């Protein structure tokens, strides 16, 4: 049993013998890798190999039917990527995804930050309850929520009934190419602002109280404290949250797929939805290429974030 071998090896190091020390080191590594084995196996099969394989597939003309005869597949180089960027649908989907990120990230962060500030500023009695309420959307099932939103946003739904009560004639939200995207983004924001809030709260609580007290003594008001203490000190948190949300929203799939199916007229179709459609059509090569565009975007965002973080701290 390996278990008894380790203390013996431990003793051997007391008497410096290179061979024994080498043997003990090898044994320690063997034990450690035994601990790592279950994770390593899943990581290899479902992350490492698929990532490399996806890159390889994106350079071939592989289709679903070729799965049984992998050697019939031709290497086509960057042709899939060239086709992607000539595909109007893909370009439109990139722009849709960019819109989701450009509107969704600031909105999610703004709401999350404002709520975190409010919850952190002396609201004691309701803080626990409110935090629970604001975080609840994060843990709810997106399929379930999307059904509720469809119910609420359809022509005669609750939202239009409420609008009618204050004198507005509500539109047919999800069937209007100009209005579907705002609703889809709103669902994304509703599901994610709780994450931003909790991360900002953690950041705010890490700011030492006496910094504020010193600033107050020097005559700095609420706004100046926010401007010159809170915001600068929260910069690392802000960067982290922004990257996190950007990475989320770059991959947005559930909300448009479930709420609108990418429609109407493709107005809410995201890159992830495009990837899924190509996959569903059996175009594995094209699908992998599209997925690598996402991977490239995510990597760029992450690298820029780490650079920014390092230069600031």
């Amino acid at each position, binding site marked *: 049993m390996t278990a008894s071998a380790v203390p013996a090896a*431990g003793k051997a190091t007391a008497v410096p013998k290179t061979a024994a020390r080498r043997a003990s080191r090898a044994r320690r590594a063997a034990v450690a890798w035994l601990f790592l084995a279950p994770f390593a196996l899943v*990581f290899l099969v479902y992350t490492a190999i698929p990532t490399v394989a996806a890159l390889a*597939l994106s350079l071939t003309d592989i289709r679903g039917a070729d799965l049984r005869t992998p050697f019939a597949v031709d290497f086509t180089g960057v042709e899939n990527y060239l086709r992607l960027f000539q595909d109007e649908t893909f370009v439109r989907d990139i722009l849709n995804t960019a819109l989701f990120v450009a509107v969704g990230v600031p909105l999610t962060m703004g709401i999350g930050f404002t709520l975190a500030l409010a*919850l952190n500023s002396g*609201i004691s009695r309701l803080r626990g309850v409110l935090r629970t309420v604001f975080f609840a959307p994060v843990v709810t099932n997106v399929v*379930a929520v999307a*059904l509720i939103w469809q*119910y609420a946003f359809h022509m005669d739904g609750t939202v239009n009934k409420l609008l009618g009560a204050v004198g507005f004639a509500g539109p047919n939200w999800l069937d209007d190419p100009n209005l579907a995207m705002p609703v889809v983004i709103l669902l994304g924001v509703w599901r994610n602002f709780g994450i931003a809030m909790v991360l900002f709260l953690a950041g705010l609580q890490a700011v030492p109280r006496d910094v504020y007290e010193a600033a107050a003594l020097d005559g700095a008001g609420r706004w100046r404290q926010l401007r010159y203490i809170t915001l600068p000190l929260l910069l690392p948190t802000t960067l982290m949250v922004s990257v996190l949300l950007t990475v989320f929203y770059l991959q947005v799939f559930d909300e448009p797929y479930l709420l609108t199916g990418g429609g109407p007229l493709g107005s809410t179709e995201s890159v992830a939805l495009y990837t899924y459609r190509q996959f569903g059509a059996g175009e594995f090569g094209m699908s992998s290429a599209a997925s690598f565009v996402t*991977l490239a975007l995510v990597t760029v965002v992450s690298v820029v974030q780490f650079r920014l973080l390092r230069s600031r701290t």
Partner: protein
Amino acid sequence: MSRTARPVMYAALVLCALLTMLPFAWGVSGSLRSLDEIRSDPGALLPHHLTFGNFTRLFETQGFGRFVVNSVVVALIVVTGNIVAASAAGYALAKLDFAGRRLAFGAVMAAMMVPFTAVFVTQFVITVDLGLADTLAGIALPGAALPLSVFIMRQYALSVPDELLEAARIDGAGEFRIFFRIFLPLAGPAVATITIMSFLNSWNNFVWPLVVAQSMSTYTLPVGLAATSQAAAHVTDYGLLLAGAIVVMLPVLVLFLFLQRYFVQGVAGTGLR
């Protein structure tokens, strides 16, 4: 804060909370209305006559019970896998000194960064090759050793004092005995976080089960519910669908109310879901 600002902020916060809760209210109220009532007055906020008929109809719907069972089985595999794989790997990464440790930890961090959309096609090809397409194991396995779980366990293990483990080593205990007898009993909070996190991940997972499950016999709840809603697109039996939505959401929301500390740690602690 000034005396006037405080009530204003309280009011604003409560208003925000109510807005946040609105979708839940719509869902619950809609699920308690009869089909006739939804047809005649689709947007009403409250039911005129409470009925649980949608829920009984839901469980009479073909396959629905099956979806529930499938979701539970998949979640059990995922949670068990994560506890086993992450506690062992996290312990090794934090407490064992070995060649390749930095590399292994780098792999965990990298795995957290790889976007799902970039790999699901090849994950699917591999799942087919392994003969696991359209099986519950095929749905569960990719999530059975989440890098986030390993990360959480490693961070926790770092806080366990080395002296404790060293003392056991001097007393002649082997690494496995130290892991099971000393480390694991101490790791309760981390195990709780991992359990909650991986359960949430499995229960709410949608795209991957959608890709792998090809017949109703392997649909999980979200996939089954989405399929039901697409099948019902022309009838739009909202009462039934909303009842389904409530059944999918309720277990997680109830767990969340009691164990929210662990949810927040798991989801927001490292910002992944």
